[in-house]
């Protein structure tokens, strides 16, 4: 549905929401600038959409950047088939609500070979179902730019990322030879086959993301809010026990408790935290006294030191 400009919408008075403070406003302006620049410079951009809180903020900023026009590129979701059920439902609702072009890709090899996070370990599983799948989807679409929601505060090698992160035709990242990036003048020149990963949220921190979600009232997957849920304790993580594919190991039992997620990935690899924070205000209050980092619940970061850098060099986001 091509959006036409509705005069009434444009002329609406400000909604009764506190205005963004200068810090968040500056981050928003920067992100919108990057979105517009990439959309104008590249022939075929795509936005990586992983349904989490960062993706939700990214999508919100994209809608703002191109308003009153439509978001001028598709959203790509690399579906490992091991996502939380609620994430997939949320994804489809959002795509319909905001009239988005949604592309979903699953690595066919993973299904053929029966690759699961249980049978092959998190490292191989991630390599095939995420990194390889992403490369397949980017190649199939012929995309020359891909937006991602990565933030520099997430992890040590992410702190080294440029806003425009240049990738070779086989999606390799060379952290030792990145293009200089001065002011907000971005070099978007690539040859056929080469591409750029663009990160509008580079300068955001986890707290910024949450405060922006609150200020802008951005809808999120309900798993971010605490509720009574069934879970199993395994390898020091609390794993949600709703999916029938989760087989209990000897000695494991399903427990019930008030839990929520700080970060969302594949359900067998994403640990929940004990929490009573059931709305945005409570989540932010909890975050402000948190003593561990957000990715502490992600198994794939902990395989070994520098593992994120290795994955990124191979083409992982």
């Amino acid at each position: 549905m091509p959006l036409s400009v509705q005069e009434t919408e444009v002329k609406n008075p400000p909604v009764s929401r506190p205005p963004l403070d200068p810090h968040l406003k500056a981050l928003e302006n920067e992100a919108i600038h990057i979105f517009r620049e990439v959309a104008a410079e590249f022939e075929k951009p795509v936005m990586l959409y992983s349904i989490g809180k960062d993706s939700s903020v990214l999508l919100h900023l994209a809608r703002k950047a191109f308003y009153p026009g439509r978001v001028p590129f598709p959203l790509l979701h690399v579906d490992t088939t091991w996502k939380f059920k609620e994430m997939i439902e949320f994804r489809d609702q959002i795509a319909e609500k905001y009239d988005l072009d949604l592309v979903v890709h699953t690595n066919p090899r993973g299904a053929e070979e029966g690759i699961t996070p249980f049978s092959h370990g998190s490292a191989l599983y991630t390599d095939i179902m995420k990194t390889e799948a992403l490369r397949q989807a980017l190649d199939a679409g012929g995309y020359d730019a891909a937006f991602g929601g990565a933030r520099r505060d997430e992890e040590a090698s992410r702190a080294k990322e440029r806003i425009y992160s240049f990738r070779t035709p086989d999606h390799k990242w060379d952290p030792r030879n990145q293009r200089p990036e001065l002011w907000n003048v971005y070099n978007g020149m690539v040859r056929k086959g080469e591409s750029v990963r663009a990160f509008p949220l580079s300068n955001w921190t986890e707290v910024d993301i949450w405060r922006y979600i609150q200020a802008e009232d951005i809808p999120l997957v309900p798993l971010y809010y605490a509720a009574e849920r069934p879970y199993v304790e395994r390898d020091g993580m609390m794993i949600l026990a709703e999916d029938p594919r989760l087989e209990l190991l000897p000695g494991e039992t399903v427990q019930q408790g008030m839990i929520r997620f700080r970060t969302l990935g594949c359900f067998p690899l994403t640990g929940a935290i004990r929490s009573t924070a059931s709305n945005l205000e409570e989540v932010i209050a909890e975050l402000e006294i948190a003593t561990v980092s957000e990715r502490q619940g992600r198994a794939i970061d902990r395989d070994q030191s520098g593992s994120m850098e290795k994955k990124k060099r191979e083409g992982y986001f």
Partner: protein
Amino acid sequence: MTAPAQTASATILPFAEPLKTVRDTRPLRLITCGSVDDGKSTLIGRLLWDTKAVKEDQAATLARDSGGQNDLGLPDFALLLDGLQAEREQGITIDVAYRYFSTDRRSFIVADTPGHEQYTRNMATGASTADLAILLADARAGLLEQTRRHATIAALMGIRQFVLAVNKIDLVHYDKAVFDRISHEFREFALSLGVRQITAIPMSALKGENVVYPADASMPWYDGPTLVETLELATVRSTQAGGFRLPVQRVVRPGESFRGYQGTVAGGSVKPGDSVVILPSGTVANVSRIVTFDLVRNAAVAGDAITLVLDRQVDVARGDVIVSLDGQPMTGHHFDAQLVSLQPGGIEPGKRYWLKSGSRRQRVAVEPISQLELATGKWQPHASTLAMNAIGKVRLSFEELAVFDAYEQNRSTGAFILIDPDTLNTVAGGMITAKRAEIGGIHRADAPGGQRVVLSLPADLAEQLMASELFANRRDETEVKRMTAKQAAELFSNAGGDI
């Protein structure tokens, strides 16, 4: 030292206590620079550690990667920053790392930039967006050429607030004379670069002395601020004053009834009803609306990402700049600039590069004029290739009309990057210093607003004049102030007909 001590203790909260972050200002962007082994990564690691930006699981990883603790019983803070495998193997910083921390006064974005000369381009990357530069000097070694190079690049890029961190002061037995000597030498040097705001602090980044916590016991002779206090009081570079500038990124046409120009305001402000000029065409129009996602706004200022709607159908494309009628930028085919050469091949005389500034990309020929000799601070005539890391003055020649401000006047519309057409890599960052007038083949550098013919004319007349073929060769040396017929009549009568 009582007041600073209170501030510091208020800043530092134990882990479990709620951290009330007050963010009533934009974050301060800073870079750390200086030579390799001066302790930059250790300093930033210490800043993160002492402001509690390091979480427990990250601290555990740090302890594991440090291989236990050093003789002071402390982890290797540099490992918080040097996140790449090659950096850890070699114990150096290769690429700029951006880190975030906050105190209860403000938030900070710090670019930890490399000291190695071969990675100067990454230092320039960090400097281009920074409000303040921390220059590190090892108390034992004093000021090195690399420290001077980094200070020079930071000053060229418009940084006006410097902190000199005389680090490893513990290794010279907290000797006040050493600190005084190095800070005096640095002040002399920084003043020669035009930097007036300089704070010198003796510190041990490793031990955390005068970083976040004052070190009254070991340095009773120092009664200045700690590093964090200095950063809290520093000012964010003001948003660009002067005339309105909107480099057009995109034209948005969602339907027949709407045509908007999307971009980020790069200077000044705008409101509905304002008369604007579209450059380089020189077309004049009025602003009818400023549209954002949330509401129709009655004004926009520098930094705002907006969509502008004009009151008439005009030809506006990506790369054009919409500017205010008063205080227009310079237009011409020849400009002077300073630049930093960033890649191994250097900048070759006469070679045609891509130049990107704002949202505009043009072909440009680059002629080196002179090169800065870092040891003496003197500009030496230079006609050959500007090697990697060289700082040079160059002459830019465009085939199409170019639009710029002087970098001193506007950091957005006065800055550019050069892209090598062979490699497509970014090979230089540059700053416009002046426009060159071209008269009969003789080039003459003009200071902004210097020797030029100024015509004050009603806008319609100005448009006709600038568009005419007869005038084509005179555009460079003529500045046209477009105004309404009424303004022109007033100006004429005020001047007693003497125009």
